[in-house]
């Protein structure tokens, strides 16, 4: 308990100097962290930000003296409250971890043991480190649940991990980290996997509890808007080196480096809205259910104007992806129909002919799993060319090269396997595969949400350019409002399997909104350190009034 140890806010807690960490891949060692300094005082929150691969997680974990398998600390000093963690024995480190240093991982679902009750897992480290006895720790955990605003704080602990939602699980994980009253908590992308509406609650809960107990924290994320709400200081990393470090307000108002400015690049794309009445695809009054029982879509009707982008927004479970499955025929609807160029499409995939299949293509969220890891880029893009257009041999290769150029890659990629590509390149190959079929409509299912800001920008610009050149129609499924603002012509808002509203971008984004749209739009973090505070204040005021 930091405040009882005779220490006070402002004392240096963590001091890392000239940290160098090497990682082993491709038969040799690479430098992952190239000499970074980090100083953290008690009660401060440091935001570590950068793209994936910048080394922010590795650096964050190094602050607790941990390097993951395949990495090793090769230089520098790590002082935690005067203890030299770089040279500490495993036993010493184990003493600290779970009592004075805690870690909150990105995926709470993967971090809990499904076979034990939540409260037992929450207090496990506290009890095993003899920070306090079990009975006391449990009572304290309930208080933590209460201050994290979990529903039914007295009994929620007796549930199992699968019985609570993702956002609740993430808050319980924060309670677990807070239970031994550590001096330092490392948050490793704790809200990245959550919906915007849930993210707000989790952020608010984490911030208040960190403030309440005056805990120092390192907050790792790639989302500048999120870190702006949490951190006192922000450190930007790139390729294992520090780009700049500054106070949050200063960083947001006057970033010194061009790279830092590019981190919010997506927010700078703008596409003028173009209305159109030429409907390419229409879904009319569709009901759909999984396994014939659980109805997930209720009377969904969406219209896609030709050559335009319709963005479908909503939180997870709202039926966005199910709608895509109905359109592609993977999930035949139980009611309603899908009309393509005025003609109804057969409901099931197997009843559609090759030409109907060719005209509607799909791009997936995770480019990693959307490409067969054992096929080369040439095979992946070449197959639709062969399959739909009947080309053979040299012709296929020629077309593949054309397509690679179209997505701003070149023919040197043709023999590579997906594992040898970066995340952005992979998504480009997936786009090329869809283009290879020469489709009219492309369904983009969260295609940019797994990518970094700069890469996102590149992909979105590419999609816009292709639309202009080839007259493509996009159905763009996403939960990211910034992306929607950037590329859509029309917006469909979905909630619990129903369409809340559909209309031109300008109309939907301008007030007044239906309640749900309002909640969704207001939950998107903004680049303003006071945004969360004000949002919470206004929501509380509304609650009090209502």
């Amino acid at each position, binding site marked *: 308990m930091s405040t009882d140890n005779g220490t006070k806010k402002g004392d240096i807690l963590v001091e890392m100097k000239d940290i160098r960490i090497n990682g082993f891949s491709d038969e040799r060692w690479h430098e992952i962290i190239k000499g970074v300094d980090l100083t953290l005082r008690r009660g401060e929150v440091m935001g570590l930000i950068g793209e994936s691969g*910048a080394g922010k997680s590795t650096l964050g974990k190094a602050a607790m003296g941990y390097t993951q398998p395949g990495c090793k600390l090769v230089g520098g000093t790590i002082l935690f409250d005067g203890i030299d963690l770089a040279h500490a024995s495993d036993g010493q480190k184990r003493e600290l971890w779970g009592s004075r240093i805690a870690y909150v991982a990105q995926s709470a679902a993967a971090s809990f043991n499904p076979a034990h009750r939540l409260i037992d897992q929450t207090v496990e480290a506290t009890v095993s480190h003899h920070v306090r006895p079990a009975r006391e720790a449990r009572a304290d955990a309930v208080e933590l649940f209460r201050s994290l605003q979990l529903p039914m704080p007295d009994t929620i602990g007796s549930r199992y991990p699968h019985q609570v939602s993702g956002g609740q699980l993430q808050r319980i994980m924060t309670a677990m980290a807070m239970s031994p009253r550590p001096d330092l908590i490392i948050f490793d992308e704790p809200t990245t996997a959550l919906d915007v509406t849930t993210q707000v609650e989790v952020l608010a809960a984490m911030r208040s509890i960190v403030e309440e107990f005056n805990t120092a924290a390192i907050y790792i994320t790639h989302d500048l808007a999120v870190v702006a709400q949490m951190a006192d200081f922000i450190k930007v990393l790139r390729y294992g080196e520090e780009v700049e470090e500054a106070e949050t307000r200063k960083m947001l108002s006057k970033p010194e480096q061009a790279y830092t400015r590019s981190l919010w690049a997506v927010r700078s794309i703008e596409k003028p809205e173009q209305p159109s009445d030429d409907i390419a695809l229409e879904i009319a009054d569709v009901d759909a259910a999984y396994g014939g029982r659980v109805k997930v879509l209720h009377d969904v009707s969406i219209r896609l104007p030709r050559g335009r982008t319709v963005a479908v927004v909503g939180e997870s479970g709202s039926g966005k992806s199910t709608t895509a499955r109905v359109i592609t025929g993977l999930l035949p609807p139980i009611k309603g129909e899908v009309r393509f160029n005025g003609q109804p499409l057969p409901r099931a995939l197997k009843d559609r002919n090759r030409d109907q*299949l060719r005209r509607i293509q799909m791009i997936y969220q995770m480019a990693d799993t959307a490409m067969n890891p054992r*096929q080369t880029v040439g095979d992946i893009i070449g197959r639709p060319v062969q399959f739909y257009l009947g080309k053979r041999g040299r012709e296929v290769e020629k077309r593949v090269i054309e397509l690679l150029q179209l997505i701003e*890659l070149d023919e040197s990629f043709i023999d590579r396997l997906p594992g040898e590509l970066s995340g952005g390149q992979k998504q480009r190959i997936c786009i090329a595969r869809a283009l290879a079929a020469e489709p009219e409509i492309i369904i983009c299912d969260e295609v940019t949400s797994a990518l970094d800001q700069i890469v996102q920008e*590149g992909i979105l610009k590419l999609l816009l350019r292709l639309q202009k050149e080839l007259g493509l129609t996009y159905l763009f499924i996403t939960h990211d409002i910034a992306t929607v603002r950037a590329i859509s012509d029309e917006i469909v808002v979905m909630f619990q399997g129903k369409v809340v509203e559909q209309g031109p971008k300008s109309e939907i984004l301008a007030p007044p909104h239906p309640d749900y749209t309002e909640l969704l739009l207001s939950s998107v973090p903004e680049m303003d350190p006071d945004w969360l505070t004000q949002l919470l204040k206004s929501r509380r005021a509304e609650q009090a009034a209502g």
Partner: protein
Amino acid sequence: MSSDKTQAAQSAGAAAEETYSAAAEVGAVRKRRTRLERIWIGLKKAPLSAWFGMTVILIYCLVALFAPLLAPYGEAQVFPVPYGPWDAEHIFGTDQIGRDVLSRLIYGARNTMGIALVTTFLSFLIGGGLGLVAAINRSWIDQILSRFIDILMAIPSLIFALMLLSIFGSTVSSLIIIIAILDSTRVFRLTRAVAVSVAVMDYVEAARLRGEGLGWVMRREILPNIMPPLVAEFGLRFCFVFLTIAALSFLGVGIQPPTADWGSMVRDNASLIQFAQYDLKAGITPLLPAAAIALLTVAVNFVVDWFLHKTSGLRDEH
């Protein structure tokens, strides 16, 4: 070459790496290697046990291939002295009707291993094919196949094999087919289990959305991704088939004389063991084919263990 690629990567504006993985996070583009180079690199890192295993397997294969050249006498050639002692003429002596033991050991490698290999291939063809179909289908075909396999597996396989062999007769072909079918149940289960997790991947869905048929999805999308566990299982299954054949031969329903086979050689000369107190060498004679079986089994297992470890994704801490 690699600088070209780095440039291409940069011009693509894709400075970032895939979803966070510390090992890959350095911006350097990985070098493309030919399959042969990859295999060689893998071999160089193989532990001693795997090298031992591979050497033994190689020697066995050579012996099996060149049996007629290596064996001093014919497979079924009978000499006047049964149970002959070890001497210069017959290095390991002769068996119960006077055939040269060394020659029969060498021919035995060919027969026993050849039949085991064909049987294992056949069982993988049946079990693997049906397993893939079940994994992709996941509805009534899967149910029917899986329950039928459960029933087959519920019957003790050795007894079942004995029964079937006595019905259909102990010819080489019926031996191969019966053991292959009984063994394919386990291959089916493994294939189905690993294929199910691949069948739900987006790229399989993408192939189906494209309109690809069952054959393409099986061969091109799923099979290449489940090869490592199947290859490892192949090694293990081979051992078990080998042991099953030896056991059946020992029981008298396996490979029939005069074809030389290690299992039946043990049985034929088993009575010699009781003479060990008078002549140690005579006592060892029936153990020689048994040792040949044991050594091969151990060798194959060493290789399989290494292969499993390599492909399981477990990383050694550096």
